[in-house]
Protein backbone atom coordinates (compact mmCIF):
# COMPACT_ATOMS: atom_id res chain seq x y z
CA UNK A 1 0.00 0.00 0.00
CA UNK A 2 1.39 3.36 -0.94
CA UNK A 3 1.10 5.58 2.12
CA UNK A 4 -1.72 8.06 2.04
CA UNK A 5 0.52 11.02 2.72
CA UNK A 6 2.32 10.19 -0.52
CA UNK A 7 -0.94 10.11 -2.42
CA UNK A 8 -2.28 13.23 -0.75
CA UNK A 9 -0.72 15.49 -3.32
CA UNK A 10 -2.84 13.82 -5.97
CA UNK A 11 -6.26 15.20 -6.73
CA UNK A 12 -9.04 12.66 -7.07
CA UNK A 13 -9.29 13.14 -10.80
CA UNK A 14 -5.56 12.77 -11.26
CA UNK A 15 -5.63 9.65 -9.17
CA UNK A 16 -8.29 8.19 -11.46
CA UNK A 17 -6.24 9.05 -14.52
CA UNK A 18 -3.20 7.37 -13.02
CA UNK A 19 -5.26 4.32 -12.09
CA UNK A 20 -6.47 4.20 -15.69
CA UNK A 21 -2.92 3.42 -16.78
CA UNK A 22 -2.77 0.36 -14.59
CA UNK A 23 -1.41 1.81 -11.34
CA UNK A 24 -2.72 -0.05 -8.33
CA UNK A 25 -2.24 2.06 -5.21
CA UNK A 26 -2.99 -0.87 -2.93
CA UNK A 27 0.08 -2.64 -4.39
CA UNK A 28 -1.63 -5.87 -3.44
CA UNK A 29 -0.46 -7.69 -6.53
CA UNK A 30 2.52 -5.57 -7.44
CA UNK A 31 6.21 -6.19 -6.88
CA UNK A 32 7.23 -2.55 -6.89
CA UNK A 33 6.06 0.94 -7.79
CA UNK A 34 7.37 4.15 -9.27
CA UNK A 35 5.52 7.42 -9.80
CA UNK A 36 6.88 10.65 -11.17
CA UNK A 37 4.84 13.84 -11.59
CA UNK A 38 6.23 16.31 -14.14
CA UNK A 39 9.91 16.13 -13.20
CA UNK A 40 9.50 15.26 -9.51
CA UNK A 41 9.61 11.85 -7.92
CA UNK A 42 6.46 10.97 -5.90
CA UNK A 43 7.58 7.52 -4.79
CA UNK A 44 9.75 4.59 -5.81
CA UNK A 45 10.09 1.32 -4.01
CA UNK A 46 10.65 -2.36 -4.49
CA UNK A 47 8.59 -4.95 -2.65
CA UNK A 48 10.44 -7.90 -4.03
CA UNK A 49 13.80 -9.55 -3.66
CA UNK A 50 15.96 -9.18 -6.71
CA UNK A 51 14.16 -6.06 -7.93
CA UNK A 52 15.61 -2.57 -7.80
CA UNK A 53 13.53 0.43 -8.70
CA UNK A 54 14.62 4.02 -8.25
CA UNK A 55 14.90 7.38 -9.88
CA UNK A 56 17.43 7.39 -12.71
CA UNK A 57 19.42 10.20 -11.09
CA UNK A 58 19.98 8.17 -7.97
CA UNK A 59 21.04 5.11 -9.95
CA UNK A 60 23.52 7.05 -12.06
CA UNK A 61 25.03 8.66 -8.97
CA UNK A 62 25.57 5.59 -6.90
CA UNK A 63 25.97 2.78 -9.42
CA UNK A 64 28.66 2.87 -12.10
CA UNK A 65 27.07 -0.12 -13.81
CA UNK A 66 23.84 1.83 -14.27
CA UNK A 67 25.88 4.68 -15.69
CA UNK A 68 27.38 2.22 -18.17
CA UNK A 69 23.94 1.34 -19.47
CA UNK A 70 22.94 4.95 -19.93
CA UNK A 71 22.94 5.65 -23.66
CA UNK A 72 24.54 2.29 -24.50
CA UNK A 73 21.82 1.23 -26.95
CA UNK A 74 22.16 4.52 -28.76
CA UNK A 75 25.91 4.23 -28.96
CA UNK A 76 25.69 0.68 -30.31
CA UNK A 77 23.35 1.79 -33.08
CA UNK A 78 25.18 5.00 -33.82
CA UNK A 79 22.14 7.07 -32.94
CA UNK A 80 22.15 10.25 -30.97
CA UNK A 81 19.81 11.00 -28.09
CA UNK A 82 18.57 13.97 -26.17
CA UNK A 83 20.68 14.51 -23.06
CA UNK A 84 18.49 17.21 -21.57
CA UNK A 85 16.24 14.83 -19.71
CA UNK A 86 14.97 15.23 -16.18
CA UNK A 87 13.87 12.18 -14.29
CA UNK A 88 12.82 8.73 -15.40
CA UNK A 89 13.21 5.39 -13.72
CA UNK A 90 15.86 2.75 -13.32
CA UNK A 91 14.52 -0.78 -12.97
CA UNK A 92 16.83 -3.75 -12.62
CA UNK A 93 15.91 -7.38 -12.10
CA UNK A 94 18.84 -9.29 -10.70
CA UNK A 95 20.26 -12.40 -12.29
CA UNK A 96 18.08 -15.48 -12.00
CA UNK A 97 15.20 -13.79 -10.17
CA UNK A 98 11.63 -14.30 -11.23
CA UNK A 99 9.50 -11.40 -10.09
CA UNK A 100 6.08 -12.84 -9.48
CA UNK A 101 3.81 -9.80 -9.56
CA UNK A 102 4.04 -6.99 -12.11
CA UNK A 103 6.20 -3.97 -11.41
CA UNK A 104 4.29 -0.72 -11.93
CA UNK A 105 5.63 2.63 -13.05
CA UNK A 106 3.85 5.80 -14.06
CA UNK A 107 5.00 9.09 -15.52
CA UNK A 108 2.39 11.74 -14.92
CA UNK A 109 2.08 15.11 -16.58
CA UNK A 110 0.44 17.69 -14.34
CA UNK A 111 1.36 21.30 -15.05
CA UNK A 112 -0.11 23.18 -17.96
CA UNK A 113 2.35 23.41 -20.81
CA UNK A 114 4.95 21.31 -19.01
CA UNK A 115 7.55 19.63 -21.16
CA UNK A 116 8.31 16.33 -19.51
CA UNK A 117 11.51 14.68 -20.73
CA UNK A 118 12.61 11.47 -19.10
CA UNK A 119 15.20 8.77 -19.62
CA UNK A 120 14.38 5.27 -18.37
CA UNK A 121 16.63 2.24 -18.06
CA UNK A 122 15.25 -1.26 -17.73
CA UNK A 123 17.72 -4.05 -17.13
CA UNK A 124 16.77 -7.69 -16.85
CA UNK A 125 19.84 -9.71 -16.00
CA UNK A 126 20.65 -13.25 -17.12
CA UNK A 127 17.86 -15.73 -16.56
CA UNK A 128 15.66 -13.23 -14.76
CA UNK A 129 11.97 -12.76 -15.50
CA UNK A 130 9.60 -9.86 -14.94
CA UNK A 131 6.39 -8.18 -16.02
CA UNK A 132 6.39 -4.41 -16.03
CA UNK A 133 3.30 -2.32 -16.50
CA UNK A 134 3.99 1.30 -17.14
CA UNK A 135 1.58 4.12 -17.57
CA UNK A 136 2.08 7.52 -19.05
CA UNK A 137 -0.71 9.97 -18.56
CA UNK A 138 -1.71 13.58 -18.23
CA UNK A 139 -3.82 15.51 -15.78
CA UNK A 140 -6.85 17.38 -17.07
CA UNK A 141 -4.95 20.50 -16.15
CA UNK A 142 -1.96 19.62 -18.32
CA UNK A 143 -3.18 21.11 -21.58
CA UNK A 144 -0.57 21.91 -24.23
CA UNK A 145 1.83 19.58 -22.44
CA UNK A 146 4.52 17.47 -24.02
CA UNK A 147 6.03 14.14 -23.05
CA UNK A 148 9.27 12.86 -24.45
CA UNK A 149 10.48 9.59 -23.01
CA UNK A 150 13.67 7.76 -23.81
CA UNK A 151 13.70 4.12 -22.77
CA UNK A 152 16.55 1.68 -23.04
CA UNK A 153 15.96 -2.00 -22.44
CA UNK A 154 18.64 -4.57 -21.78
CA UNK A 155 17.27 -8.07 -21.80
CA UNK A 156 20.24 -10.30 -21.12
CA UNK A 157 20.80 -13.93 -22.08
CA UNK A 158 17.98 -16.24 -21.11
CA UNK A 159 15.96 -13.42 -19.57
CA UNK A 160 12.25 -12.69 -20.07
CA UNK A 161 10.64 -9.29 -20.04
CA UNK A 162 7.02 -8.50 -20.71
CA UNK A 163 6.68 -4.75 -20.82
CA UNK A 164 3.21 -3.27 -21.16
CA UNK A 165 2.87 0.43 -21.71
CA UNK A 166 -0.49 2.10 -21.32
CA UNK A 167 -0.97 5.64 -22.53
CA UNK A 168 -3.78 7.79 -21.22
CA UNK A 169 -3.26 11.32 -22.52
CA UNK A 170 -5.65 14.02 -23.45
CA UNK A 171 -6.55 16.07 -26.51
CA UNK A 172 -3.89 18.74 -26.37
CA UNK A 173 -0.84 16.70 -25.39
CA UNK A 174 2.00 15.72 -27.73
CA UNK A 175 3.95 12.56 -27.09
CA UNK A 176 7.24 11.32 -28.49
CA UNK A 177 8.72 8.24 -26.88
CA UNK A 178 11.99 6.86 -28.20
CA UNK A 179 13.04 3.37 -27.25
CA UNK A 180 15.69 0.82 -28.08
CA UNK A 181 15.92 -2.69 -26.69
CA UNK A 182 18.81 -5.07 -26.92
CA UNK A 183 17.91 -8.71 -26.54
CA UNK A 184 20.46 -11.44 -25.78
CA UNK A 185 20.73 -15.13 -26.45
CA UNK A 186 17.51 -17.09 -25.91
CA UNK A 187 16.01 -14.05 -24.25
CA UNK A 188 12.40 -12.98 -24.76
CA UNK A 189 11.22 -9.40 -24.98
CA UNK A 190 7.52 -8.73 -25.28
CA UNK A 191 6.55 -5.13 -25.70
CA UNK A 192 2.89 -4.19 -25.50
CA UNK A 193 1.39 -0.83 -26.21
CA UNK A 194 -2.17 0.14 -25.32
CA UNK A 195 -3.55 3.60 -26.11
CA UNK A 196 -7.27 4.10 -25.69
CA UNK A 197 -7.67 7.78 -24.81
CA UNK A 198 -7.53 10.92 -26.98
CA UNK A 199 -4.19 12.60 -27.61
CA UNK A 200 -3.07 15.35 -29.97
CA UNK A 201 -0.29 13.37 -31.55
CA UNK A 202 1.94 10.45 -30.74
CA UNK A 203 4.97 9.49 -32.75
CA UNK A 204 6.86 6.40 -31.74
CA UNK A 205 8.93 3.81 -33.45
CA UNK A 206 10.57 1.61 -30.83
CA UNK A 207 13.39 -0.63 -31.99
CA UNK A 208 14.56 -4.04 -30.81
CA UNK A 209 17.95 -5.45 -31.67
CA UNK A 210 18.03 -9.22 -31.37
CA UNK A 211 21.74 -9.83 -31.15
CA UNK A 212 21.78 -13.15 -29.31
CA UNK A 213 21.04 -16.50 -30.93
CA UNK A 214 17.41 -17.66 -30.53
CA UNK A 215 16.29 -14.35 -29.08
CA UNK A 216 12.60 -13.62 -29.55
CA UNK A 217 10.51 -10.51 -29.50
CA UNK A 218 6.93 -9.50 -30.06
CA UNK A 219 5.52 -6.04 -30.32
CA UNK A 220 1.78 -5.81 -29.87
CA UNK A 221 -0.25 -2.68 -30.00
CA UNK A 222 -3.90 -1.91 -29.39
CA UNK A 223 -4.89 1.57 -30.43
CA UNK A 224 -8.17 3.41 -30.25
CA UNK A 225 -8.07 6.63 -32.21
CA UNK A 226 -10.39 9.48 -31.32
CA UNK A 227 -11.36 12.36 -33.63
CA UNK A 228 -8.51 14.85 -33.80
CA UNK A 229 -5.85 12.39 -32.69
CA UNK A 230 -2.87 11.40 -34.79
CA UNK A 231 -1.14 8.20 -33.71
CA UNK A 232 1.91 7.31 -35.73
CA UNK A 233 2.96 4.11 -34.06
CA UNK A 234 5.23 1.37 -35.25
CA UNK A 235 7.97 -0.96 -34.23
CA UNK A 236 11.17 -2.05 -35.80
CA UNK A 237 13.10 -5.24 -35.23
CA UNK A 238 16.58 -6.14 -36.42
CA UNK A 239 17.16 -9.90 -36.43
CA UNK A 240 20.92 -9.84 -36.02
CA UNK A 241 21.60 -13.39 -34.87
CA UNK A 242 20.67 -16.80 -36.21
CA UNK A 243 17.35 -18.36 -35.24
CA UNK A 244 15.94 -15.16 -33.85
CA UNK A 245 12.23 -14.46 -34.22
CA UNK A 246 10.05 -11.39 -34.28
CA UNK A 247 6.35 -10.73 -34.46
CA UNK A 248 4.72 -7.33 -34.80
CA UNK A 249 0.97 -7.26 -34.31
CA UNK A 250 -1.18 -4.19 -34.34
CA UNK A 251 -4.89 -3.63 -33.90
CA UNK A 252 -6.16 -0.15 -34.55
CA UNK A 253 -9.71 1.13 -34.33
CA UNK A 254 -10.40 4.61 -35.58
CA UNK A 255 -13.32 6.47 -34.06
CA UNK A 256 -12.45 9.35 -36.37
CA UNK A 257 -8.75 9.86 -35.74
CA UNK A 258 -5.78 9.04 -37.90
CA UNK A 259 -3.55 6.05 -37.28
CA UNK A 260 -0.32 5.25 -39.05
CA UNK A 261 0.63 1.66 -38.23
CA UNK A 262 4.22 0.96 -39.17
CA UNK A 263 6.23 -2.16 -38.84
CA UNK A 264 9.67 -3.04 -40.05
CA UNK A 265 11.50 -6.33 -39.73
CA UNK A 266 15.02 -6.67 -41.00
CA UNK A 267 16.64 -10.06 -41.38
CA UNK A 268 20.36 -9.53 -40.86
CA UNK A 269 21.22 -13.16 -40.18
CA UNK A 270 20.32 -16.59 -41.53
CA UNK A 271 17.45 -18.79 -40.39
CA UNK A 272 15.43 -16.05 -38.85
CA UNK A 273 11.67 -15.64 -38.77
CA UNK A 274 9.52 -12.56 -38.78
CA UNK A 275 5.84 -11.84 -39.12
CA UNK A 276 3.92 -8.59 -39.31
CA UNK A 277 0.18 -8.40 -38.84
CA UNK A 278 -1.82 -5.23 -39.00
CA UNK A 279 -5.57 -5.05 -38.68
CA UNK A 280 -7.51 -1.84 -38.65
CA UNK A 281 -11.16 -0.93 -38.36
CA UNK A 282 -12.60 2.43 -39.20
CA UNK A 283 -15.96 3.12 -37.63
CA UNK A 284 -17.14 6.57 -38.85
CA UNK A 285 -16.55 7.88 -42.36
CA UNK A 286 -13.87 10.40 -41.48
CA UNK A 287 -11.36 8.10 -39.75
CA UNK A 288 -8.19 7.02 -41.46
CA UNK A 289 -5.66 4.24 -41.13
CA UNK A 290 -2.41 3.95 -43.01
CA UNK A 291 -0.68 0.58 -42.66
CA UNK A 292 2.96 0.38 -43.68
CA UNK A 293 4.44 -3.06 -43.18
CA UNK A 294 8.06 -3.35 -44.29
CA UNK A 295 10.39 -6.31 -44.50
CA UNK A 296 13.90 -6.67 -45.75
CA UNK A 297 16.50 -9.36 -45.91
CA UNK A 298 20.11 -9.76 -46.91
CA UNK A 299 19.80 -13.53 -46.85
CA UNK A 300 17.81 -16.14 -48.67
CA UNK A 301 17.22 -18.55 -45.80
CA UNK A 302 14.73 -16.49 -43.89
CA UNK A 303 11.00 -16.63 -43.32
CA UNK A 304 9.38 -13.20 -43.42
CA UNK A 305 5.70 -12.57 -43.96
CA UNK A 306 3.03 -10.01 -43.38
CA UNK A 307 -0.72 -9.62 -43.51
CA UNK A 308 -2.72 -6.47 -43.34
CA UNK A 309 -6.43 -5.81 -43.50
CA UNK A 310 -8.00 -2.44 -42.94
CA UNK A 311 -11.46 -1.04 -43.54
CA UNK A 312 -14.89 -0.92 -42.07
CA UNK A 313 -16.55 -3.71 -40.13
CA UNK A 314 -17.88 -6.26 -42.56
CA UNK A 315 -21.61 -5.64 -42.77
CA UNK A 316 -22.33 -9.34 -43.14
CA UNK A 317 -20.89 -9.86 -39.66
CA UNK A 318 -23.15 -7.19 -38.21
CA UNK A 319 -26.13 -8.70 -40.01
CA UNK A 320 -25.22 -12.13 -38.71
CA UNK A 321 -25.23 -10.91 -35.12
CA UNK A 322 -28.48 -9.04 -35.70
CA UNK A 323 -29.97 -12.36 -36.81
CA UNK A 324 -29.10 -13.53 -33.32
CA UNK A 325 -31.08 -10.65 -31.86
CA UNK A 326 -28.37 -8.02 -31.30
CA UNK A 327 -28.98 -4.41 -32.27
CA UNK A 328 -26.54 -2.96 -34.84
CA UNK A 329 -24.91 -0.99 -32.01
CA UNK A 330 -24.48 -4.05 -29.80
CA UNK A 331 -23.15 -6.02 -32.74
CA UNK A 332 -20.59 -3.34 -33.54
CA UNK A 333 -19.44 -3.07 -29.96
CA UNK A 334 -19.07 -6.84 -29.62
CA UNK A 335 -16.98 -7.01 -32.77
CA UNK A 336 -14.79 -4.07 -31.77
CA UNK A 337 -14.14 -5.52 -28.32
CA UNK A 338 -13.22 -8.84 -29.84
CA UNK A 339 -11.01 -7.06 -32.33
CA UNK A 340 -9.06 -5.31 -29.59
CA UNK A 341 -8.43 -8.62 -27.88
CA UNK A 342 -5.90 -8.26 -25.09
CA UNK A 343 -5.23 -11.98 -25.44
CA UNK A 344 -2.40 -11.10 -27.84
CA UNK A 345 -0.41 -9.38 -25.09
CA UNK A 346 0.87 -12.55 -23.42
CA UNK A 347 -0.08 -11.35 -19.95
CA UNK A 348 -0.75 -13.36 -16.81
CA UNK A 349 -4.50 -13.81 -16.19
CA UNK A 350 -4.86 -11.21 -13.45
CA UNK A 351 -3.11 -8.47 -15.40
CA UNK A 352 -4.96 -9.44 -18.54
CA UNK A 353 -8.26 -9.05 -16.70
CA UNK A 354 -7.20 -5.63 -15.41
CA UNK A 355 -6.39 -4.38 -18.89
CA UNK A 356 -9.56 -5.92 -20.28
CA UNK A 357 -11.45 -3.94 -17.66
CA UNK A 358 -9.72 -0.68 -18.66
CA UNK A 359 -10.56 -1.41 -22.25
CA UNK A 360 -14.18 -2.24 -21.52
CA UNK A 361 -14.76 0.96 -19.60
CA UNK A 362 -13.13 3.06 -22.32
CA UNK A 363 -15.06 1.35 -25.08
CA UNK A 364 -18.33 1.64 -23.20
CA UNK A 365 -17.85 5.39 -23.14
CA UNK A 366 -16.37 5.64 -26.63
CA UNK A 367 -18.71 3.64 -28.84
Amino acid at each position, binding site marked *: MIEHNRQDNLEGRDRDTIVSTGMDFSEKERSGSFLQQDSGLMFARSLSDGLEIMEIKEALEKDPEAAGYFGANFRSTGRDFDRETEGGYFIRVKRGHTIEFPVQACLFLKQQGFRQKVHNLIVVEEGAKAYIITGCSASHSASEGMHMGISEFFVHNGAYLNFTMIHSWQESVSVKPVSIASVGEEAVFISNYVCLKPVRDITMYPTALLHGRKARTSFNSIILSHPGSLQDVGSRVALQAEETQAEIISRAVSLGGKVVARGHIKAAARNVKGHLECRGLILPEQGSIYAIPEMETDYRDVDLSHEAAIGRI*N*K*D*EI*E*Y*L*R*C*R*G*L*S*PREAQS*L*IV*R*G*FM*DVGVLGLPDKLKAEIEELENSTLKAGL
Partner: protein
Amino acid sequence: MMLEVKNVSVEVSGRLILQGVDMHIRKGEVVVLFGPNGSGKSTLLKTIMGFEGYKVISGEILLGETRIDGLPVEERVKLGLGLMYQHPPQVRGVKLAQIAGRLSGNAGLIKEMSERLSLSSHLSRDINMGFSGGEMKRSELFQLILQDPGLLLLDEPESGVDLENISVMGKVLDGYLKEEGKSALIITHTGYILDYINARKGCVMIDGKMWCVGRPKEIFENIRERGYDKCMGCDDRAQSAR
Protein backbone atom coordinates in the same frame (compact mmCIF):
# COMPACT_ATOMS: atom_id res chain seq x y z
CA MET B 1 -51.47 -18.56 -39.63
CA MET B 2 -47.85 -18.20 -38.62
CA LEU B 3 -46.22 -16.78 -41.74
CA GLU B 4 -47.83 -15.39 -44.83
CA VAL B 5 -45.90 -14.29 -47.89
CA LYS B 6 -48.33 -12.51 -50.18
CA ASN B 7 -47.49 -11.84 -53.79
CA VAL B 8 -43.95 -10.76 -52.89
CA SER B 9 -41.50 -9.54 -55.53
CA VAL B 10 -37.91 -8.84 -54.55
CA GLU B 11 -35.10 -6.95 -56.16
CA VAL B 12 -31.43 -7.51 -55.34
CA SER B 13 -28.84 -5.08 -56.74
CA GLY B 14 -31.44 -3.79 -59.18
CA ARG B 15 -32.25 -7.30 -60.43
CA LEU B 16 -35.69 -8.82 -60.02
CA ILE B 17 -35.13 -12.15 -58.25
CA LEU B 18 -38.48 -13.13 -56.74
CA GLN B 19 -41.65 -12.60 -58.73
CA GLY B 20 -45.01 -12.62 -57.02
CA VAL B 21 -44.21 -15.34 -54.51
CA ASP B 22 -47.04 -16.64 -52.35
CA MET B 23 -46.68 -19.08 -49.53
CA HIS B 24 -47.84 -19.66 -46.02
CA ILE B 25 -46.85 -21.68 -43.02
CA ARG B 26 -49.29 -22.63 -40.31
CA LYS B 27 -48.43 -22.80 -36.67
CA GLY B 28 -46.78 -26.16 -36.00
CA GLU B 29 -46.25 -26.82 -39.70
CA VAL B 30 -42.98 -27.77 -41.37
CA VAL B 31 -42.65 -26.73 -45.00
CA VAL B 32 -39.89 -27.93 -47.31
CA LEU B 33 -38.65 -25.76 -50.16
CA PHE B 34 -37.03 -27.31 -53.22
CA GLY B 35 -35.61 -25.70 -56.30
CA PRO B 36 -32.57 -25.63 -58.56
CA ASN B 37 -29.48 -23.57 -57.74
CA GLY B 38 -30.00 -19.89 -58.21
CA SER B 39 -33.79 -20.12 -58.26
CA GLY B 40 -34.20 -17.71 -55.36
CA LYS B 41 -34.67 -19.95 -52.30
CA SER B 42 -32.06 -18.25 -50.16
CA THR B 43 -33.33 -14.92 -51.38
CA LEU B 44 -36.76 -15.77 -50.03
CA LEU B 45 -35.35 -16.64 -46.60
CA LYS B 46 -33.19 -13.54 -46.46
CA THR B 47 -36.14 -11.42 -47.49
CA ILE B 48 -38.30 -12.91 -44.75
CA MET B 49 -35.46 -12.24 -42.32
CA GLY B 50 -35.04 -8.65 -43.55
CA PHE B 51 -31.49 -8.63 -44.91
CA GLU B 52 -30.11 -5.38 -46.22
CA GLY B 53 -30.25 -5.14 -50.01
CA TYR B 54 -33.23 -7.46 -50.40
CA LYS B 55 -35.83 -4.99 -51.51
CA VAL B 56 -39.49 -5.93 -51.39
CA ILE B 57 -40.93 -4.03 -54.33
CA SER B 58 -44.44 -5.39 -54.02
CA GLY B 59 -46.53 -7.60 -51.80
CA GLU B 60 -46.37 -8.07 -48.06
CA ILE B 61 -45.08 -10.44 -45.41
CA LEU B 62 -47.02 -11.15 -42.24
CA LEU B 63 -45.87 -12.93 -39.14
CA GLY B 64 -48.99 -13.71 -37.16
CA GLU B 65 -50.91 -10.45 -37.26
CA THR B 66 -47.85 -8.29 -37.71
CA ARG B 67 -46.65 -7.00 -41.03
CA ILE B 68 -42.89 -7.52 -40.87
CA ASP B 69 -41.50 -6.39 -44.20
CA GLY B 70 -39.89 -3.08 -43.37
CA LEU B 71 -38.91 -4.10 -39.82
CA PRO B 72 -35.23 -4.34 -38.92
CA VAL B 73 -33.76 -7.83 -38.64
CA GLU B 74 -33.46 -7.81 -34.85
CA GLU B 75 -37.13 -6.80 -34.49
CA ARG B 76 -38.13 -9.81 -36.57
CA VAL B 77 -35.98 -11.95 -34.29
CA LYS B 78 -37.89 -10.61 -31.30
CA LEU B 79 -41.13 -11.61 -33.01
CA GLY B 80 -39.89 -15.19 -33.21
CA LEU B 81 -37.98 -15.63 -36.46
CA GLY B 82 -34.69 -17.50 -36.55
CA LEU B 83 -32.40 -18.16 -39.51
CA MET B 84 -29.86 -20.86 -40.10
CA TYR B 85 -27.48 -19.59 -42.75
CA GLN B 86 -26.50 -21.52 -45.83
CA HIS B 87 -23.10 -19.76 -45.81
CA PRO B 88 -22.53 -18.08 -42.47
CA PRO B 89 -19.76 -15.46 -42.29
CA GLN B 90 -16.74 -15.71 -40.00
CA VAL B 91 -16.94 -13.30 -37.11
CA ARG B 92 -13.43 -12.60 -35.90
CA GLY B 93 -13.09 -11.81 -32.23
CA VAL B 94 -16.54 -13.02 -31.22
CA LYS B 95 -16.57 -16.38 -29.49
CA LEU B 96 -19.30 -18.94 -30.01
CA ALA B 97 -19.71 -19.04 -26.23
CA GLN B 98 -20.40 -15.29 -26.12
CA ILE B 99 -23.29 -15.62 -28.54
CA ALA B 100 -24.54 -18.77 -26.84
CA GLY B 101 -24.63 -16.88 -23.53
CA ARG B 102 -26.59 -14.04 -25.08
CA LEU B 103 -29.08 -16.38 -26.72
CA SER B 104 -29.81 -18.43 -23.65
CA GLY B 105 -29.41 -17.90 -19.94
CA ASN B 106 -29.61 -21.64 -19.46
CA ALA B 107 -26.05 -22.87 -18.92
CA GLY B 108 -27.27 -26.45 -18.66
CA LEU B 109 -28.90 -26.29 -22.08
CA ILE B 110 -25.80 -24.71 -23.61
CA LYS B 111 -23.68 -27.51 -22.22
CA GLU B 112 -26.07 -30.25 -23.27
CA MET B 113 -26.57 -28.95 -26.81
CA SER B 114 -22.89 -28.24 -27.38
CA GLU B 115 -22.13 -31.80 -26.33
CA ARG B 116 -24.86 -33.36 -28.47
CA LEU B 117 -23.67 -31.41 -31.49
CA SER B 118 -19.95 -32.06 -30.71
CA LEU B 119 -19.22 -28.36 -30.29
CA SER B 120 -17.82 -28.25 -26.75
CA SER B 121 -14.34 -27.34 -27.91
CA HIS B 122 -15.71 -24.80 -30.41
CA LEU B 123 -17.29 -22.64 -27.72
CA SER B 124 -14.00 -20.88 -27.01
CA ARG B 125 -13.30 -20.24 -30.70
CA ASP B 126 -14.20 -17.29 -32.86
CA ILE B 127 -17.44 -17.95 -34.69
CA ASN B 128 -16.84 -19.98 -37.85
CA MET B 129 -13.11 -19.16 -37.94
CA GLY B 130 -11.53 -22.32 -39.27
CA PHE B 131 -14.72 -24.33 -38.79
CA SER B 132 -15.28 -27.10 -41.34
CA GLY B 133 -18.47 -27.00 -43.42
CA GLY B 134 -20.17 -29.50 -41.12
CA GLU B 135 -19.03 -27.68 -37.99
CA MET B 136 -20.53 -24.45 -39.27
CA LYS B 137 -23.87 -26.13 -39.84
CA ARG B 138 -23.82 -27.67 -36.40
CA SER B 139 -22.92 -24.35 -34.86
CA GLU B 140 -25.81 -22.73 -36.74
CA LEU B 141 -28.26 -25.30 -35.46
CA PHE B 142 -26.81 -24.99 -31.97
CA GLN B 143 -27.35 -21.23 -31.93
CA LEU B 144 -30.83 -21.55 -33.34
CA ILE B 145 -31.93 -24.03 -30.69
CA LEU B 146 -30.64 -21.68 -27.99
CA GLN B 147 -32.37 -18.75 -29.63
CA ASP B 148 -35.62 -20.73 -29.48
CA PRO B 149 -37.57 -19.07 -32.30
CA GLY B 150 -41.19 -19.94 -33.12
CA LEU B 151 -40.47 -20.13 -36.85
CA LEU B 152 -37.18 -21.61 -38.04
CA LEU B 153 -35.81 -20.75 -41.45
CA LEU B 154 -33.24 -23.39 -42.35
CA ASP B 155 -31.16 -22.87 -45.48
CA GLU B 156 -29.73 -26.21 -46.55
CA PRO B 157 -29.03 -27.43 -43.02
CA GLU B 158 -27.43 -30.69 -44.15
CA SER B 159 -25.26 -29.52 -47.07
CA GLY B 160 -21.66 -30.49 -46.50
CA VAL B 161 -22.44 -32.53 -43.39
CA ASP B 162 -21.39 -36.18 -43.16
CA LEU B 163 -24.12 -38.80 -42.76
CA GLU B 164 -23.38 -39.47 -39.13
CA ASN B 165 -23.74 -35.82 -38.25
CA ILE B 166 -26.83 -35.43 -40.40
CA SER B 167 -28.37 -38.05 -38.18
CA VAL B 168 -27.32 -36.15 -35.03
CA MET B 169 -28.61 -32.86 -36.43
CA GLY B 170 -31.80 -34.45 -37.74
CA LYS B 171 -32.62 -35.82 -34.31
CA VAL B 172 -31.88 -32.56 -32.52
CA LEU B 173 -34.01 -30.69 -35.01
CA ASP B 174 -36.86 -33.17 -34.87
CA GLY B 175 -36.85 -33.03 -31.07
CA TYR B 176 -37.07 -29.27 -31.19
CA LEU B 177 -39.82 -29.15 -33.80
CA LYS B 178 -41.93 -31.56 -31.84
CA GLU B 179 -42.21 -28.96 -29.13
CA GLU B 180 -45.61 -27.39 -29.23
CA GLY B 181 -46.29 -24.94 -32.00
CA LYS B 182 -42.85 -24.71 -33.60
CA SER B 183 -42.91 -24.09 -37.34
CA ALA B 184 -40.17 -24.33 -39.93
CA LEU B 185 -39.30 -23.58 -43.52
CA ILE B 186 -36.50 -25.84 -44.69
CA ILE B 187 -34.53 -25.66 -47.90
CA THR B 188 -32.97 -28.94 -48.93
CA HIS B 189 -31.05 -30.20 -51.93
CA THR B 190 -30.12 -33.62 -50.78
CA GLY B 191 -33.44 -34.49 -49.16
CA TYR B 192 -31.62 -36.33 -46.35
CA ILE B 193 -33.21 -34.19 -43.70
CA LEU B 194 -36.64 -35.50 -44.77
CA ASP B 195 -35.80 -38.81 -43.13
CA TYR B 196 -35.68 -37.17 -39.73
CA ILE B 197 -38.46 -34.66 -39.65
CA ASN B 198 -42.14 -34.84 -40.11
CA ALA B 199 -42.90 -32.49 -42.99
CA ARG B 200 -46.26 -32.64 -44.74
CA LYS B 201 -45.92 -29.83 -47.19
CA GLY B 202 -43.34 -29.11 -49.85
CA CYS B 203 -43.05 -26.53 -52.57
CA VAL B 204 -40.77 -25.85 -55.49
CA MET B 205 -39.23 -22.59 -56.53
CA ILE B 206 -38.03 -22.08 -60.09
CA ASP B 207 -36.77 -18.81 -61.53
CA GLY B 208 -38.08 -16.80 -58.62
CA LYS B 209 -41.58 -18.21 -58.82
CA MET B 210 -43.32 -20.73 -56.62
CA TRP B 211 -44.42 -23.73 -58.65
CA CYS B 212 -46.08 -26.71 -57.12
CA VAL B 213 -47.18 -27.66 -53.67
CA GLY B 214 -47.46 -31.22 -52.50
CA ARG B 215 -46.10 -33.89 -50.24
CA PRO B 216 -42.37 -33.30 -49.80
CA LYS B 217 -41.27 -36.91 -50.31
CA GLU B 218 -43.29 -37.22 -53.51
CA ILE B 219 -41.95 -33.95 -54.85
CA PHE B 220 -38.43 -35.01 -53.99
CA GLU B 221 -38.84 -38.38 -55.74
CA ASN B 222 -40.23 -36.67 -58.84
CA ILE B 223 -37.35 -34.22 -58.96
CA ARG B 224 -34.88 -37.04 -58.54
CA GLU B 225 -36.38 -39.03 -61.38
CA ARG B 226 -37.32 -36.34 -63.84
CA GLY B 227 -35.55 -33.18 -62.80
CA TYR B 228 -37.05 -29.77 -62.33
CA ASP B 229 -38.22 -29.47 -65.94
CA LYS B 230 -41.18 -31.63 -65.11
CA CYS B 231 -42.18 -29.25 -62.34
CA MET B 232 -42.38 -26.46 -64.83
CA GLY B 233 -44.78 -28.49 -66.93
CA CYS B 234 -46.93 -29.07 -63.89
CA ASP B 235 -50.25 -27.25 -64.09
CA ASP B 236 -50.35 -26.72 -60.36
CA ARG B 237 -48.90 -23.24 -60.45
CA ALA B 238 -52.17 -21.43 -59.87
CA GLN B 239 -52.82 -23.61 -56.88
CA SER B 240 -49.50 -22.95 -55.26
CA ALA B 241 -50.63 -19.66 -53.87
CA ARG B 242 -53.31 -21.15 -51.72
